[in-house]
């Protein structure tokens, strides 16, 4: 009787054969293995973000619904929000902040773009001009603001700006001591301090515009203004739009300017910003819960603004 010679005969073939491989799982495993180093490095960053950014943020939201007295924390629902909204300084702070934001959009947003366009037109000394414009950004913000506070905005006739105004035969100003001038003065200082970075970003965007577009426009008889409106602005629309959103988010967080230029609230609360009010509640009024509630209100407002902005932008696209 012939004996079966089939390899493996008499043995449970199923237990020896390689397991069928799920191709999707294999792909996932391979991807995971390829990215392991990345994930390993990511862990440190994630832990840092968790402790230094996400946890404080979540803790802030929780605190805004609590009140702490004598070490005892109790849940008070919307009480802190009610208190904060009824604080007379709340609306003043929002008005001031929004006024600053609008002024900063008109001045602080337009000036760097204008400077970048001008700089882009220069044929010579571009590098030097770029350095000159960027120099104020290298100054620590506090130092730059002290320069404005003590030198430029000195309300006496000896102040730098007042000397210039007087020399030109124009009326002098009380600058930070005038409730009307507080915000414009803060925007001027802030624009001077920060525009260098924005100019460089705009310049990079401008230099990416293909030269043929300008040549074509010139052949069609377009002057400087038409070249800017028909070529430059449409070609830099995305960066302009992104910078506008960043500008709003940054200016809404107005703090260091009132703190240094106006020593806080300024003349008759004309410099009080929302963030300065948070600082007042948190550090001077022994009201960390109120400060947290105000911080959450601001966060929601900024998220709301960003969402509306993204929606509008998406529609335009």
């Amino acid at each position, binding site marked *: 009787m012939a004996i079966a010679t089939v390899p493996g005969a008499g043995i449970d073939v199923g237990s020896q054969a390689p397991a069928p491989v799920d191709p999707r799982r294999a792909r996932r495993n391979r991807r995971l293995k390829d990215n392991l*180093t990345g994930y390993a490095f990511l862990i440190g960053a994630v832990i840092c973000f968790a402790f230094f950014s996400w946890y404080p943020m979540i803790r802030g939201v929780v605190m805004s619904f609590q009140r*702490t007295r*004598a070490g005892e924390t109790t849940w008070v629902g919307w009480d802190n929000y009610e208190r904060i909204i009824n604080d007379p300084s709340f609306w003043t702070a929002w008005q001031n902040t929004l006024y600053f934001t609008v002024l900063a959009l008109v001045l602080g947003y337009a000036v760097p773009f204008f400077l970048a366009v001008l700089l882009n037109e220069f044929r010579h000394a571009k590098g030097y001009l770029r350095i000159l414009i960027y120099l104020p950004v290298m100054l620590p913000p506090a130092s730059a603001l002290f320069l404005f506070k003590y030198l430029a905005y000195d309300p006496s006739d000896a102040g730098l700006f007042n000397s210039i105004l007087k020399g030109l035969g124009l009326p002098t100003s009380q600058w930070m001591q005038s409730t009307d001038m507080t915000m414009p003065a803060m925007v001027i200082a802030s624009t001077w301090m920060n525009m260098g970075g924005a100019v460089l970003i705009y310049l990079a965007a401008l230099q990416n515009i293909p030269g043929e577009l300008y040549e074509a426009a010139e052949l069609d008889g377009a002057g400087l203004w038409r070249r800017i409106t028909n070529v430059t602005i449409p070609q830099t629309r995305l960066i302009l739009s992104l910078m506008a959103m960043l500008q709003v988010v940054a200016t809404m967080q107005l703090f260091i300017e009132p703190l240094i230029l106006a020593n*806080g609230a300024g003349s008759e609360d004309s410099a009080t910003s929302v963030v300065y009010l948070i600082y007042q509640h948190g550090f*001077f009024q022994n009201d960390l819960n109120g400060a947290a509630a105000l911080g959450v209100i601001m966060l929601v407002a900024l998220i709301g603004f960003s969402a509306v902005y993204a929606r509008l932008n998406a529609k335009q696209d």
Partner: protein
Amino acid sequence: MSVPHFRKVAAIALATGLGLGLAACSTKSDDDTDAAGKTIITVDCQPVGAQKNLLQAWNDDVKAFEAANPTIKIKSVSVGTQCANPPDFTARLQGGSMTDVFYGYMTDVQQVIDSGQAMDISAFVNKDSIPTWDDVLADAKNTFTKDGKVWGVPTKNYSMGLVYNKTLFTKAGLDPKSPPKTWAEVREAAKKISALGDGIAGFGEYSSGNTGGWHFTAELYAQGGALVTADNKKADFNNDMGKKVLQNLKDMRYGDNSMGARQLLGWGDLLTIAGAGKVGMFVGAPDATTAIVTQFQGKYEDWAMGAMPGQDGAAKGTLGGGEGYFFKKGLTDDQVKAGLKWLAFEKLTPGKGQFDYARAKAQGEQVGLPQPQLFTPGSPSQKSEFDLRKANGNIAPDDFSAFENNPVTIKFEPPNAQGIYAILDGAMSAILTNPNANVDAELKKAEDKVNQLLTQAAK
């Protein structure tokens, strides 16, 4: 990447991340005893390196204290401006990163209690732990006592008067030995000083960074007024006394033009102007002269001090404040006792620590200021401190006599003082920067806001 190599990378990354995270979270204080069984306490406000004399004195004191108390080890912590800057203090308090024995202003007491970070030291504070305790001013002790519980130990106090520049007084034809006693006299002197020109202000006043409200309070107390009602529930300054405070300043600023062009001054701004010799007078405490010299490049010989000016005669009161030390919750009994012993040595014993006038004089520091006056007048500690001060004083005998010989009733700051001061900055800045500001309207506005603050705080 090979698996072992990957494991190494992952382990390093994980350890780094966890290490950073845990380091950030760790608020555990030092152990309470060292290997030799000594009780360890950490204390803050060690002078910073730039304050060479003060730092040397502190280190010498720590050594002397440890030699006299071999079972105690002091670990000193210097935290920059934490001991003079309320926001820094609040951040450390809320973060739970204070030292075992930590510094705070008298206005911080409620905040410290609310934070739940300090311990009730009632059972430990007495004349056994602090030999001069019974001589310490009752008002200063009361400031650190709430609902019968002692939360801290007062270590310094001040009251306000009129700080003035003798050199400018002489130049303006005024008698530097006879400072103004009433607001009318202040006004006249300010006019003469500002007439010297060269950007010199006759009188300087704060109006921002909460200091405007602080000085409004001092000047209101001089009128006989109060910032809040006795039950601390309502504002109590919208009255004739509050009006006189603002009107005096407005008249000097816009009527006489004797306060200079620069307003919205905060603490450092006014002292900078003073250090440069550009202001004739301002309301302040005796140690303002020390700050002018040590921090703002002024000269001791320029400055003197008189009593707080009254409206028509002597002032009816003046603002007092100060500082003290608290104990972190969770300390052992031995640590609390060691901390009290250190405070007694460094802050509350005539001839030692802050009252070691012989050493301060040898170091060239200003000695002889009438404050801190921590001890009850007539008590043995007060007599001893007074004798040592007189024996070692290096200030001109008349410089502070007008202040010292005309004591004014001291009234301390109310609860929620910093919040109220911030609101009153608005009224002060209005009348000092806006010629059309209405005193009545500004007081009413501030009153409404303070009432709202007090209602909120009571919730």
